[in-house]
């Protein structure tokens, strides 16, 4: 059993352990979850340090590391051939940083769950199940396996929001569930279509192997998704375009892009703090990851031709999300919309198809991962104390909670792209990459880069405005004296959770090579894959 498999299935072990233990030892559940997640984190850190930077991955089997490939399902279907599904996992520069990020954000999530009282057994069991699914998604290289993990992820999340959430939790949970399911059900159709278009050259059977799907030579001539001599059309649209669009639609819901984003504010507002942290920190990244790995990897020809529209969607998301964040009066909703805006940078960077833009997008995903986690955690701190997060109900918090204010200010400035913090590197290189796209003739015009940069300005506006309204000025809180007493400064546990996230933002801002060195080979490989179709 390889390291990657251990990393994926450790949380499942935790789930089983938690389920098996009697309710009388319910105080141990969180420690079990913490121990397993810590182990995962150590494991991912080990994998990070032993990662070979020179290997690219993407569509190249030899470029993947920690690879495990075992036959999983073999079924003779008579005339159709043999059904061939593998347990096939491996990581490259695109997935490694996201795996490390996921283990870290999971740790933060466990830390934020420390005070959960409501049916802890189910809670931690589901959280660990979610953990497993997420790891699986980032590691799976067999499309069927990927899909299984993708669907497994939905289930715990539905219950985590629907049971442990706020007042309108059922509404938010079902909205989130249906939205994601809508994307993934359509994705299944494309997976099947791809399956029947691709032949494994060694066995001669159809295959779900993603790497095989990335090689034009493996497609059957004239098949539905075939690369060459493909005349299939659906409603007058070439079939490969359909395949790309459907997959993009599925992942775009996750990112989320405008206008498929409305599940996000509702889910965030209703979700408990730890789930918000995981939702923003990890699950949104699955969208970006899916676009790079699946849409761009399997449909490089369409990627090269659709990037104008993707970049346009990215810019719209940036600006639309930022303007909406500016209009919010609920702190958590504001941060949710700021996520929409920041994830727009990811899409813009990916669509620029330049090394700078793609690296910037990857970096932005990592940076937004723990920064949004920190932001949602900070909202949770306030909500824990007074069960309110309406911006206008607070004023002059800096005088009541100086440490908290310092952390909030740092997190806000880090998020608005202050140099020295990671978000700056991500956003600046997305902008530079988008600018460079015109010189590289990838089809993204410069005005989009300028549009994106206005998003940077707006992010400063909504963060600073919030800072001014809630934290500065004379003390005036809605709950009066009772609130002032309830609003205690950060506890040691809370600082222990926040400090690593902000420290990491600072470290990555000063030493971006920690990420760039790992992803560079993969980014170049991806560009090589798409370049011929430009």
């Amino acid at each position: 059993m390889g390291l990657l498999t251990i990393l994926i299935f450790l949380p499942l072990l935790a789930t089983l352990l938690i389920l098996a233990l009697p309710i009388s030892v319910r105080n141990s559940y969180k420690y079990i979850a913490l121990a397993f997640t810590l182990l995962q984190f150590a494991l991912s850190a080990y994998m990070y340090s032993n990662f070979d930077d020179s290997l690219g991955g993407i569509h190249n089997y030899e470029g993947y590391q920690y690879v495990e490939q075992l036959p999983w399902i073999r079924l003779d279907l008579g005339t159709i051939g043999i059904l061939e599904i593998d347990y096939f996992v491996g990581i490259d520069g695109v997935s490694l940083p996201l795996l490390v990020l996921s283990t870290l954000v999971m740790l933060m999530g466990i830390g934020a769950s420390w005070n959960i009282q409501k049916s802890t057994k189910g809670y931690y069991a589901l959280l660990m199940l979610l953990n497993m699914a997420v790891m699986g998604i980032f590691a799976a290289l067999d499309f069927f396996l990927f899909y299984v993990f993708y669907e497994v992820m939905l289930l715990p999340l539905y219950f985590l929001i629907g049971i442990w959430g706020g007042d309108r939790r059922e509404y938010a949970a079902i909205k989130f569930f249906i939205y994601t399911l809508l994307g993934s059900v359509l994705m299944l159709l494309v997976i099947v279509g791809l399956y029947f278009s691709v032949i494994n050259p060694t066995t001669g059977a159809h295959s779900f192997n993603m790497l095989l799907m990335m090689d034009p030579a493996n497609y059957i001539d004239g098949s539905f998704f075939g690369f060459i001599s493909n005349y299939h059309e659906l409603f007058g649209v070439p079939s490969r375009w359909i395949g790309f669009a459907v997959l993009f639609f599925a992942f775009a819901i996750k990112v989320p892009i405008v206008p498929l984003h409305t599940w996000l504010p509702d889910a965030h507002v209703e979700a408990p703090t730890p789930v918000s942290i995981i939702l923003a920190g990890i699950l949104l990244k699955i969208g970006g990851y899916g676009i790079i790995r699946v849409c761009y990897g399997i449909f490089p020809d369409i990627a090269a031709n659709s990037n104008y529209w993707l970049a346009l969607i990215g810019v719209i998301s940036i600006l639309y999300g930022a303007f909406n964040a500016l209009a919010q009066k609920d702190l958590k909703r504001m941060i949710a919309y700021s996520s929409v805006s920041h994830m727009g940078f990811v899409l813009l960077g990916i669509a620029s198809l330049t090394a700078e833009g793609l690296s910037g997008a990857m970096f932005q995903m990592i940076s937004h991962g723990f920064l949004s986690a920190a932001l949602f955690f900070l909202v949770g701190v306030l909500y824990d104390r007074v069960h309110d997060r309406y911006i206008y109900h607070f004023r002059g918090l800096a005088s009541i909670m100086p440490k908290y204010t310092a952390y909030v200010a740092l997190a806000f400035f880090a998020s608005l792209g202050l140099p020295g913090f990671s978000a700056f590197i991500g956003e600046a290189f997305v902008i530079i990459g988008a600018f460079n796209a015109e010189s590289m003739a990838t089809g993204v015009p410069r005005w989009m880069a300028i549009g994106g940069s206005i998003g940077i300005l707006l992010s400063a506006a909504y963060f600073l405005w919030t800072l001014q309204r809630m934290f500065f000025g004379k003390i005036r809180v809605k709950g009066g004296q009772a609130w002032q007493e309830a609003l205690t400064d950060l506890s040691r546990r809370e600082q222990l959770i926040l400090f690593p996230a902000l420290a990491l933002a600072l470290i990555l801002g000063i030493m971006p090579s920690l990420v760039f060195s790992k992803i560079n080979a993969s980014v170049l490989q991806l560009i090589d894959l798409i370049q011929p179709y430009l």
Partner: protein
Amino acid sequence: MNELSPISPSVASLLVVLLPFLACVVQALLGRKSISGNISLIAIVSSALLSFFAVFLPVWGNSPMAERITWFTIGQTSFEVGLLLNNLTVLMQLIVCVVAVPVHIYSRYYMKGDSGIHRYWMYLSLFCFAMLGLSISINLLQLYVFWELVGFASYLMIGFWFTRDAAVQANKKAFLINRIGDLGFLIGIALVYSHVGTLDIVALFDQTGRFVQGLTETGGLQVVQKDNTWVTLAGLAFFLGAMAKSAQFPLHVWLPDAMEGPTSVSSLIHAATMVAAGVFLLCTVFPLFNATSLLVITAIGTITALSGAVFALAQYDIKKILAFSTISQLGFMIVGVGIGAWDTALFHLATHAFFKCLLFLAAGAVIHEMAHFKAQTNLDFDPQDIRNMGGLRRYMPKTYVCMSIAALALAGFPLTSGYLSKDSIVVSAYEWASTAGGFYFVIPVTLIIVSLLTAFYIGRLIFKTFFGSFAMQSSVTAHNRPHEAPAGMWWPMSVLSICCFFPVFGLHPLAYHQTWIIQTFHARPGFTEQETAHLIIPIVLTVGTLLALLLGWFWYVKNRYPISQQNRWIRFANRQGYLNEFNELVFIKGTVGLSRLLYAFDRHVVDGATKLFTWTTQQLARLIHWFDANIVDGIVNWIANGTYYMGHLVRQVQNGQLQNYLGFALTIVILGILYLIIK
């Protein structure tokens, strides 16, 4: 290598940058335990000494040095950080250090007893770190990093008293307007990067001041064609960055509001150093500008110089007058860059740093004493309003002398440094205009007018503050009266006032060509020198300055003020040309309105579509349910009911009564017979 310093200039300059950073970190860790400011003071003094002896002396006038290390690699491109030590950067670093030292000493007394003083020292050291790092950056991206950090430090300082609403409004405004400039800077970087492929300042601009684009095939340097549109755009983008940081019209609006910060901070950040960073940037990337962008720069600089001076005329807040004066003087520097004589801009930057810093420190001393007096007498008045002052020279003679020296330097009085540097810009502008001819004379003429206005408004400030009779005279008693500032405050001021005289910059009192700054840089702008201009313009300026001061004397000291306070023009200047109101109405209300509109759109249209989809699905489900209940199940029920009804009908026959059975049988028989008959 200079024998004075045992360490190399690169290491020394790195130390100069890192010492304040270290001080910032230590101060942050110590928090309230350290309020003396000694850590920051020791750091900045060491930086200043190192900067002068180990960096400035070895490098000044010699060939530049550069050190780089790779920061990170993206694709095939490596991004580097490093130090660039040439005349420009070491001069900038030295100015920052030398101005920062007296401000640090002054702050120890000015900020004494403030409850947040530990934060003050932390922010001050952070600012010094960022500003010193900015001055020696070798890479435009690195420069941008420090550029924003400087803005961040300024944000923290403006909002230092965060319980004051005005202060936190002001720091938000400052940061956001600077952000607009930062976007320009970033776009400029992106343009240069995508066309030239590097951001290294040494690689971009060669020693002779050309903008180069790598090597040609023959191995020579390939000079960028400057008439390309993108070069113009990049030039304007960089200028946008400089406009925000150096408070150029119309992005100057943040600077007057920034006066909400402590006065010691205003003197260092918002007068002497940070606001000059824009000018420094323009000098750094000067080879990039083509004729079009230079003309825009000149025009904006002139407008700024004029509008700043006009607005300064009608302010009552002592710090706001100085803030507008800073804006106006920055306009001069920008004009210097725009006409190609960037050495004069840099010279003015250097002299201005000293006398404007001193003006602010002296104003701070006045405010300090006025606030003290206010606290003693329990009166309610604004300690920064010059209408509440007057006659203070009797109480604060040392401050009065220091401030007057700085005011004379600002007004460009002979023998002061301001005379040399301001003349250098005005004379160069005149020469530039006479080369270009015609309409371009607007620029030097405006600058001359602005110089006279400068003399007038600074005269007004001095006269209203120190001359005449004290406005609060009735409250003055033997115990309660304004005092001279403490020694720790006026010592730094007197050191700075020495720096306002010409010998610091050159031995000849009247010829700016012989100052060491101009001689070393010696930019070669494309216009011819005119001997007459060098003679006539200084005379015009000096006589005009004297007349303006005389007029001020009559108006403000002799109380022969002829204009009504309600004059429309005075109100216009006092309200800063209603620019803030305009911005509030158009940009802020517009943005907030748009954001509300988009949120309504999001809720009702985008989320509405989701809801509509849900509703449609539900209605469809209901319809199908109805169909299922009424049609599909209806048919089943209809058949069942029909069968039942039939049975119900037929069962009547089987009622067990013999008569009925016989009757039925008879009927059937009769019907049978009838059938047979008819057939």
